[in-house]
């Protein structure tokens, strides 16, 4: 069974982009357009990895991250931050911090190293 990646980003164009990149490399995907929706999808889909944007309407990515880390079942899910904001302080133990615009091959490389 393919590994599953959850994409959280409020921009539908970027969601489509990431979905295409991951599915072309043999991963299954699911997505959410906000932090709140993201938490629901994480619980329902139990993804193997989360690809998280930081700046979104309503709650920002870091808050999603803190809530995720408080949930015992989910807290070990690896997170890759994909964002246009500089700096990586808010999400301290993210697997990687990928700046927008990103190189799809590098992103896929990081994903492969993390979940195979």
């Amino acid at each position, binding site marked *: 069974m393919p590994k599953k990646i959850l994409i959280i980003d409020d921009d539908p164009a970027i969601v489509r982009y990431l979905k295409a990149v991951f599915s072309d490399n043999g991963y299954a995907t699911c997505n959410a357009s906000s932090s709140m929706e993201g938490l629901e999808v994480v619980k329902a889909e139990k993804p193997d990895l989360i690809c998280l*944007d930081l700046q979104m309407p309503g709650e920002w990515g870091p*808050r999603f991250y803190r809530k995720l880390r408080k949930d015992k079942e989910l807290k070990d899910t690896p997170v890759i931050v994909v964002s246009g904001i500089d700096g990586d302080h808010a999400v301290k133990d993210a697997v990687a911090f990928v700046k927008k615009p990103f190189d799809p091959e590098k992103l896929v490389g990081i994903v492969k190293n993390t979940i195979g």
Partner: protein
Amino acid sequence: MAKKLLLVDDEEGIRKVLSIALSDSGYTVFTAQNGEEALDIFRRETPPIVLTDIKMPGMDGIELLQTLKQESPDTEVIMITGHGDMELAIKSLKFQAIDFVTKPINDDALEIALNRAHEKIRMRQQLREYTENLEALVREKSAKLVEIERQVAVGQAVEGLSSAMRDIAVDLEGGLTYFNEMPCFVSIHSPQLKVIAVNPLYRDRLGDKVGHNSWEIYAGKTGTQANCPAGQTYKSGKGLRTKATVKTASGGKAPVMVNTAPIRNQDGDVELVVEISADITEVKRLQEELDRSQQRYQQLFDEVPCYISVQDRQLRLTAVNRRFKEDFNVEHGAFCHEVYKHQGEPCPNCPVAKTFEDGHSHQSEMVVTSKAGERYNVLIWTAPLRNAAGEITHVMEMSTNITQIRKLQDHLSSLGLKISSISHGIKSLLTGLDGGMYLMETGFAKDKSERVKAGYEDLKLIVSRIRKLVYNILFFAKERELKRDRVDILNFVDDVASTVEPKIIANGIEFVREFDASVGALKLDAGVVRLALINILENALDACLEDEAQKSHKILFRVQQDDKQIFFEISDNGIGMDREVRESLFTLFFSSKGNKGTGLGLFIADKIIDQHDGRISVESKPGRGSKFKVSIPKMISKSVITKRKNE
């Protein structure tokens, strides 16, 4: 002397590294690991600059900032923020932080922030010195006035003295022994109108006239036998008081005040006349100087580049200078807070009231509204005015208009925000372009036309976003003159509605037009007002799209009028706004839409409507939708015209 700086952060690593860097730059660095400790150190060391993290356990950075600004408004606070804290950073600027730097801390960014803090401190000091100089000048002038008034009083005392001397001379026949010391011209005259004695001052100034005729020293009419004071006194038997001009020994003339007194023998006949004259040149000179000084004082009062007012204990204006009258409506006895702020209550931190309380000067910064409706930032300085008993009867208030400086500062902080906000927006757009191209490329390679189409649609979407961003930035970057033409409103709003309607309907949202058919025409710059209305309509659309409540959404575009204004009302039943969002709506680069907003739309709409002397009001509640009401006056008001002229 080393500059003091207080560094507050809960992470020991950051404290250590930054302390070293700042010490190298010549600062004496104090560190604290939380807000409470920071306040202790601050009160002890009073550093002019504080650098603080926002997120800390216990008292956080924002709270520390508010406390510091309240205790010591002159202290400049730089915030350290994590990258997710943009909203907190904006909030801290509202609470008067001078700047913020993001983690990881870049040395250059920190240096810029520190320089900005120093610049602000320097600017404030200059302003203060300037105001203090002014105060000193006024004090010096007032002291001079008091001195002159005292001299005038002395002159009057001399007159009084000579009149007293006359009485003494009447009462005491032997009184003559005094007169050698008197500060006046004193002479004794015989019934034959000959001078028989003079005092030394008389001899020095008018010559030794002993044995000469009594009228000899006088010029003009008084200088005749019948009209000279001694002659008249012999004739009437009564003392007299008159003004005359005497010829001095050096050939000049001097105005004098002459008093005479008859001295009678035992039979009651006038035996001698004492004539006492005080030189009134000095008095006159003092009088003129007083007038001149008063005039100069008035000029100074009127012309200084400040608003000066004198207020009584009830904060009523008892005197104001010309500049004050130019910019504010002053009726006699009006209250300061009415005139400055159109408020019924005194301001909470009234510096005048504080001065009445403690007798010291106080300063504060306030925003006041002129009679033309302009908002000015003023730096206020007060000084007590005391009566002779040393009690404070009035307080003088000087306000320097620092609006320009403030504007510049706001512009600087918004530029700082702009750079981070726009660069982030552009990165998202670039990623979107990459995405569209990836979909098209891989779609072509794998021959999947659906994917090519999806990629193309994404590219179209991103390009339209780029277009909007570029237009808005261009608009922001350029101050343009309004091009007002008479526009038929019904045609105009139909056109605006038709532009946005397809997009609204395509998203399954109902769009209702409700136009008053009799609105007629209005002079406005159709191009920009159209941009403003479209920005608001597109926001309404976004508000409906973001609303996840399962209901049918509707946008109402309504145009109405009364006799003075035309109203454009745009309401939606979308997601709505809470108070904080509502209050920041028109702020530059404020966006509640994450990646999709530029933070320019409503800022620009507000600016456009303001240029038309109109206003935008907003009603909104979370979950209840929003109503934007744009009102534009039918007549162009005078203040707008003069404003334009001054620009």
